[in-house]
């Protein structure tokens, strides 16, 4: 698979994630916000950001399968 195909699969997997997990992934990976900034902007604790981000990444990897 080329890089473009991988990216497409990742984004499709992203669409399958719950909204709260999708939000933290986008804010972190695309917008480059720190954990503290994400926590402040969403009004949640930093620990919540960490757990959502970890679950989101697990979900993305599960969606990608063997890639």
């Amino acid at each position, binding site marked *: 698979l080329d*890089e*473009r195909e*991988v*990216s*497409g699969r*990742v*984004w499709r997997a*992203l669409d399958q994630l719950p909204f709260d997990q999708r*939000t933290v*992934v*986008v*804010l*972190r*990976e*695309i*917008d480059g*916000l*720190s*954990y503290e*900034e*994400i926590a*402040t*902007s*969403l*009004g949640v604790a930093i620990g919540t950001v*960490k757990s959502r*981000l*970890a679950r989101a*990444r697990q979900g*993305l*990897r599960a969606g990608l399968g063997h890639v």
Partner: protein
Amino acid sequence: MSAADCRNTRKQLDSFVDGELSGGARLAVTRHLVECRTCEGEAEALRGLGVALRAGALTVDTSGLRGLADGVVSRLVAEQAQSWRVRFLRAFEDWHWVMIGTGSVIGTTACTLLVASVLLFGPKTERPDSLAGRLNNSDASAGTLFVVATPVGDDKSSIWMQFEGAGGPTSGANLAVVPSAIGIADESALTSALADMVTRNGKLIELSAMSAQERLRAEALLDDIHRLRSADQHSGATGPVTPHLLWLVANASVSAKAL
């Protein structure tokens, strides 16, 4: 390296990849990844996810996420505006008039204290020959009448007369001794007569309230007193005098009337 090390490292792997670990924790994870190929592969997989997401953001339709970053920034600005520091500064921003008023009160109080201290503890600048100086240095009692008269055409040779009470004796340090050769009784008789003319019931009267005749008599009495003093002191100034001021010392206060 043990399974427990790997479990601990996996727990911190997301934070490590995102650069959110600091100090010893970051160093420990770095050392573990150097030794553990499995965990190093997990870290690379996490980094790869980020790379793929960012690469896909350029090619995949992300319209559903449009505006998310703007909303985040707005939220950050709003949160910052509500921080304690901002609230503190804003609270004092509304107090600027209170601060100005407080500063004015402090400044006024400081100036008042300064002036009061200068008046109380500063040097006394009054001249001994000034009216205040002469009154302060004299041991005149309440009700003492002072008459200040100046010879016509000679403002510097003023006559300073003191009457102890209305019509009372006129003995004092600044009264001249009358030479018996002149033939007039003494200065005491002249000043008693003058005191009777310029006072009514113990109060001073203005020259304008006198009749022309009384005024002429008062000036004549002053001339006589002046001549007596001049003869005693051999000053040679024997011309007519004009009364300028009458001063009554009453209970340490001074009241003046221009004649």
